[in-house]
């Protein structure tokens, strides 16, 4: 065996370790989103352009619930940039995890639930997850905390927190509510932190995502790294 082949096999082994989710994650996600679209249609959610704009946060289920494509097959268990979140979780091996978007990523919720004491953030994500994505055979065991508890500092402490930029975008300072829930050496992952690319534009410094990053950099004992590829993931470690 030459060195190249040996290296390749090592990569294959690593890939098996760091990709603990099932191979059908993309198909599962499409199925869940398709069910949610039917549910939303039954509620007659206002989907006029005026009411929703072109907002990914609102159109998520419509995007990923459409018929399967090569794009979705490559999507894996993650939202864009999500591999970084999973690898951070894998490296951290947290005892307690807080997660805010289980219906957008049921496979990740399953992985977090199986490897950690999981807590979900109350909201439509939990409602839709429990209605359409939660497979009862998985042995779920998680708590749910309210956003009010998080804002009041009563949310507890976690080794690992995974949220989306949309959880905090309306009030940038609220990112500290999540940061303050980290245990020492805990990791906070903020997904989609490029915020539709605004952070990468000339005017990015006048945007809420920029403000969020500045707040995090100035937070006590914080170490901040922003991966700008794809939709962006911001990693924050409390030293």
């Amino acid at each position, binding site marked *: 065996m030459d060195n190249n082949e040996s290296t390749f096999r090592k990569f294959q082994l690593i890939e098996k370790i760091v990709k603990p989710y099932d191979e059908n994650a993309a198909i599962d996600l499409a199925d869940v989103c398709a069910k949610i679209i039917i549910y939303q249609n039954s509620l007659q959610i206002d989907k006029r352009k005026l009411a929703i704009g072109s907002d990914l946060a609102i159109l998520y289920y419509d995007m990923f619930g459409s018929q399967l494509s090569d794009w979705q097959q490559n999507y894996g268990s993650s939202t864009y940039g999500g591999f970084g979140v999973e690898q951070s979780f894998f490296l951290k091996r947290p005892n307690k995890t807080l997660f805010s978007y289980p219906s957008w990523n049921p496979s990740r919720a399953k992985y977090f639930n199986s490897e950690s004491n999981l807590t979900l953030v*109350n*909201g*439509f994500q*939990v409602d839709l997850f429990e209605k359409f994505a939660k497979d009862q055979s998985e042995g779920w065991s998680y708590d749910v905390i309210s956003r*009010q508890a998080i804002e009041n500092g009563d949310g507890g402490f976690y080794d690992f927190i995974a949220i989306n930029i*949309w959880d905090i975008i309306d009030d940038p300072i609220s990112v500290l509510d999540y940061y303050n829930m980290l245990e020492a050496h805990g990791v906070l992952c903020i997904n989609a932190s490029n915020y539709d690319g605004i952070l990468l534009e000339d*005017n990015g410094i*006048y945007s809420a995502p920029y403000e969020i990053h500045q707040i995090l950099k100035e937070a006590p004992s914080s170490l901040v790294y922003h991966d700008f590829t794809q939709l962006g993931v911001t990693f924050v470690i409390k030293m």
Partner: protein
Amino acid sequence: MSYNLEQDLDYIDIKLRYYQHILGIDPDNIADLSIDFLLEKAISLASFTAADAREYAISGLGAYPPAILFLRNIRIELITNIRRFWYMQQLALGASSG
């Protein structure tokens, strides 16, 4: 534990009331409002549009002044945040009727 509808609705209600205050709308009239009305108020409050930005760009005046860039982003964030909380409210109200 599982999804708590009451807490969810309370949280969304507080957020929407916050935006109503910004728009100068009486928060007690929330049940009578439409998303059209809220967005019309938001757009009138921050009237610098993407079309304005394009016009400025082709006018040869160079880079946008920071104030214009700031206003543009404030406008985007105001409108999109209202839309999101309105959407969340629809989902929560749907859960309450189901």
